[in-house]
């Protein structure tokens, strides 16, 4: 029997994986992917809570989050293309013109 706690544990694990991915991965596309994981952790939590409260508000929230995440990845990929054109790299460690 799956209870609310199980879903929340998976959600927290997804969120932690997202943060770990951002910290460990150096490719910008992978970092964007890890950020998506963080958003989807929130989505899973929303859905689980919506079920627990028998409230549709949480499910509606998920649609907003999906939209925002899609917009975020669109802008992110566009800037990543500009970056690879200008600097010929998508490695986060090599993108460091600005320092001080």
């Amino acid at each position, binding site marked *: 029997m799956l209870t609310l706690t199980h879903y929340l544990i998976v959600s927290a694990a997804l969120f932690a994986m997202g943060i770990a991915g951002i910290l460990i991965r150096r490719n910008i596309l992978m970092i964007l992917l890890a950020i998506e994981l*963080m958003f989807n952790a929130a989505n899973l939590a929303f859905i689980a809570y919506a079920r627990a409260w028998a409230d549709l508000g949480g499910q509606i*929230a998920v649609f907003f989050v999906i939209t925002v995440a899609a*917009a975020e990845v669109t802008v992110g990929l566009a800037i990543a293309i500009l970056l690879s054109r*200008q600097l010929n790299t998508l490695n986060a460690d090599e993108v460091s013109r600005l320092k001080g």
Partner: protein
Amino acid sequence: MTWKLIGVEFVVSVWTIVTLGADILNLPRRNRLWLLALAGLSLAAIVLALQPPESLGESFQDMFVVDGFGRYFKGLFLVIAAVVIVMTREFEDRLSAPLGAFYMLLFTALLGMLIVASVNDLLLLFVGLELITFSLYIMTAYLKTDPRSVEAGMKYLIIGSIASGFLIYGVALLYGFSGSTHFPSLHKAIVSGVIPLSAQAGFFFVLAGLGFKIAAVPFHLWVPDVYEGAPTPVVAFLSVGSKMAGIIALVRILYGVFLPLHGLWMDTLAILSAATMLYGNLAAIVQTNIKRLLGYSSIGHAGYLLMALSSGSSLGVSAVGYYLLAYLVSNLTVFLVIVAASKTIGGDHLEAYNGLSKRSPALAGALFLGLLSLAGVPPLAGFSGKLLILLAGAQAGQLWLVTIGALNVALSLYYYLMIVKRMYLGTPINPSVIRVHPVTHTTLILLVLGIFVLGIFQNPFLQQIQSAIENQQWTRPQFPNAEPP
């Protein structure tokens, strides 16, 4: 749902389409587009002024609330956008990409700020904040052929998205606690029961997401790089507008919802405030790029705002309102001078400002006053703002924090005066005179006038702010006594 309530937002969202359409149809010439954008802002300002003060209320299932507090900040946002348009006019020959799209992004960001000023629901807050940051990500990377601008955009996007991830996960946890993302329901749930650990974690996640917006210390990593790399009008827009939006959201959440938990967040905010002030002002001292220096200085200002927020008193909120107004005029003055001067003096390096007073006494004078006001020298606007914040801190009994705040005034004065010294005592590399366009000149005069008026006559503004704060729809209008509970 009453359409009257969303009049300002309606005009601004129509203008996103108008500016984009003007760009596609090429109707006004490129160098006239700024007039079209200003016309939209004037229209929005008229609609805002015509909203009778009694026409307050909620809309969109209570998610959107129009009150005196929101209206005050909506006015300020329109002023910020107007000055940023004047800056863009000055900057437009350096923006290679389509200009109409740039104004469109400016209006979408403005729309997000107006929504945040009226927010009454965590989900709407999330959407409003994302509207601001997405527009700013693109605007930051707008100099497509400049690797520094693109790099700044990428860094801003990654760190901003992490902050959004924290914010939305926190919202999900708070939703699980109260069964609603609506502020009044959330408030009811907090007053009536034990707060589980998950809800506390959710609250701090939301704080972290907002801390990114105002550039508070553990979430400040994007600030210097973005300030250095982004086009200067965008920097001005995000340093004032985006910070103000974050502060409004914090006030609405901390004072409208979580005031009963004041003991939980007061110390956290006070410690963050001290760290933010010290870090921002100490790191600014060694900078050699004026935009980067202002980035660190804006971190320092976020520290003062956090100090006022941590007080948990109505004086603290008034101080925030006044400080943001003072910060607006001072910071926009400084950035307008930078935009106007940077083309002739060649770059944003501090050495380029050597002997500015000999090349353009007007620009040097305005920069001098703007910087002194940012530092908090009487009788300028920044002084009154800092004084109110320190008073609020003292009233809340946080004397250690007030001491650090006063120390930071001296620290910040040092690096601001270093720029002033370069301007007045340095010898210019190139003694040619800098020409300033009349539009820029007029705007500068108005802003400098604002600095003086705000510094000398505090009372009318303070009364306006206080009545705006009383005229709000927070679930709990009475503030607790200043003593920490």
